[in-house]
């Protein structure tokens, strides 16, 4: 600690340069936090997905509906404990660009299949009583300021009403939360029966089925049995465990991990030159000062330590700021792109700070070596 004033003063010798370098590192690590946090969070969501829950979608693609009649046949497969279903609503509030993630569900079976979602039984009853009822997720309620009793008029970019009315009016009768934080709560759930009766087309179909099984080791076998039921029909199915399903959905976007790592590597490589140059200039300007320190008994290792400490302080403080900024803004950004309920994982914070430390050492290595090798006599003589 006693060297801190010396290190701090050295750091702020050229205030503007230090501030600019600091900002570069802050921005780079904010980007690092956002991108890596996103991939780590996706990985976390995949890991948290259940192996005892299967998802069934059309073999063609997810936009093709499946008949509701499939439900009864799926329930006959040995090992299946329960079946629920879901239909995308593609909702928006007031204008199409103001989207609200909305799904039509059968609340009773859905509640049974998702025990990790905290849904008060009174809300289930309220949904059963109120045909145009809706359940709002905790994050969505916080974002929109919606509460129980609110009337929420939504439009749908896919579904038109049979009665010719423009919008869909829902009444919020309850809310749900995810105590583990592993299930996004950024969605509005509406009654499937009400939705299906009111929509103009595709009645009696669903987008997805959810199947509860009790033996995760049999998920592949049960999936095959379900798909075999509908093989060669007009509505063939593709059944996967939730984990595999989400992994497949993400893979459709591309190798996110590769893109993220490539971007971060490019940014960090460029940043290395910025901080390396800053440290090099800083040491070059202070050669006489470092010579004075050596004159007064600071050994080679002490001088190297001061240069490294300066670099570490700059990089780690800036990286902590950057990662802090990304932690503060990432949940809202993730929500904007449709992945709600995610916070920056601690593993990303730890990796970021470790990377910043490694970064500081690499960028200060050459200047530190120069400081170590400087000859007091030559430096004091201005040679």
């Amino acid at each position, binding site marked *: 600690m006693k060297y801190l004033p010396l290190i701090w003063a050295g750091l702020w*010798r050229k205030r503007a340069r230090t501030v600019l370098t600091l900002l570069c590192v802050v921005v780079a690590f904010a980007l690092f936090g956002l991108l890596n946090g996103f991939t780590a969070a996706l990985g976390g969501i995949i890991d948290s997905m259940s192996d005892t829950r299967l998802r069934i979608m059309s073999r063609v693609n997810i936009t093709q509906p499946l008949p509701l009649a499939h439900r009864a046949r799926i329930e006959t497969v040995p090992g299946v404990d329960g079946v629920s279903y879901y239909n995308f609503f593609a909702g928006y509030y007031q204008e199409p660009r103001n989207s609200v993630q909305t799904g039509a569900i059968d609340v009773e079976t859905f509640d049974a299949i998702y025990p990790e979602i905290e849904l008060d039984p009174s809300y289930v009853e309220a949904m059963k009583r109120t045909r145009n009822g809706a359940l709002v997720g905790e994050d969505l309620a916080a974002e929109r300021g919606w509460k129980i009793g609110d009337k929420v008029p939504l439009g749908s970019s896919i579904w038109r009403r049979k009665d010719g009315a423009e919008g869909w009016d829902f009444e919020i009768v309850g809310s749900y939360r995810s105590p583990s934080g592993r299930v996004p709560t950024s969605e509005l759930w509406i009654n499937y029966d009400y939705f299906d009766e009111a929509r103009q087309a595709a009645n009696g179909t669903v987008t997805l089925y959810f199947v509860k099984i009790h033996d995760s080791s049999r998920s592949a076998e049960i999936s095959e049995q379900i798909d075999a039921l509908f093989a060669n029909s007009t509505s063939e199915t593709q059944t996967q465990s939730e984990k595999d399903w989400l992994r497949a959905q993400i893979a459709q976007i591309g190798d996110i991990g590769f893109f993220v790592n490539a971007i971060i590597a490019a940014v960090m490589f460029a940043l290395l030159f910025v901080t390396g140059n800053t440290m090099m200039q800083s040491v070059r300007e202070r050669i*006489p000062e470092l010579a*004075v320190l*050596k004159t*007064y*008994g*600071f050994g080679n290792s002490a001088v190297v330590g001061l240069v490294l400490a300066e670099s570490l302080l700059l990089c780690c403080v800036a990286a902590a700021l950057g990662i802090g900024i990304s932690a503060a803004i990432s949940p809202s950004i993730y929500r904007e792109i449709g992945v709600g309920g995610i916070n920056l994982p601690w593993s990303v914070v730890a990796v970021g700070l470790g990377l910043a430390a490694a970064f500081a050492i690499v960028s200060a290595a050459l200047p530190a070596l120069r400081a170590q090798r400087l000859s007091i006599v030559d430096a*004091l003589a201005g040679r």
Partner: protein
Amino acid sequence: MTALVSIKQVVKGYTRGKQRVEVLHSIDLTVERGEFLALMGPSGSGKTTLLNLIGGLDRPDRGEITVAGERIDGLSSGQLAKWRARNVGFIFQFYNLLPVLTAERNVEVPLLLTKLSAAERRRNVAAALELVGLADRAKHKPGELSGGQQQRVAIARALVADPTLLVCDEPTGDLDRETSESILTLLKLLNERQGKTIVMVTHDPRAAQYASRRLYVDKGSLAAAALGVAA
């Protein structure tokens, strides 16, 4: 008096380009404890090289250097650094203060290598600044001080760790006559009242007048200064 610095047959040279230049030729010198020695001579005569050897900033090519009973000519650079921290205070022509630190932080620098507590360091720094008459400028940075004040801060820094030996390289070379006299008077007081042994390099006969002994370095050899010093 006993010898604090003993130099025997010291030779020192430098390589400049492809040429080897011998700067000091078989120097013999003894500096007594409590002495104030002025080394004079023209530029390039080798007086600063000799001072650097006495202060342990450089090592001789040949010969022996003993300071306070310890042979320093064979010490490694790490050992020399520790030795300097314990034994020598340095005063330079251009003060060489760290511009980003306040006067008190500058004076504290040599104490950072000791095991003194923060409170003890503060006390010693305050005492050193008091001694050079700059207690009221403790919080000022070098850029906010005059040349004479900066040199006083440098003297306080040289004194703060209570070294055995003070080495001064043209300490008044950058100062006007009046300020030079006050700095030299301070050095003389430190020598007479505090018993500090001082070796000072100067080319100014007026500055050399403050020393108790004057030696002349010319072309790498020592001779007693026989020059008449103008009053």
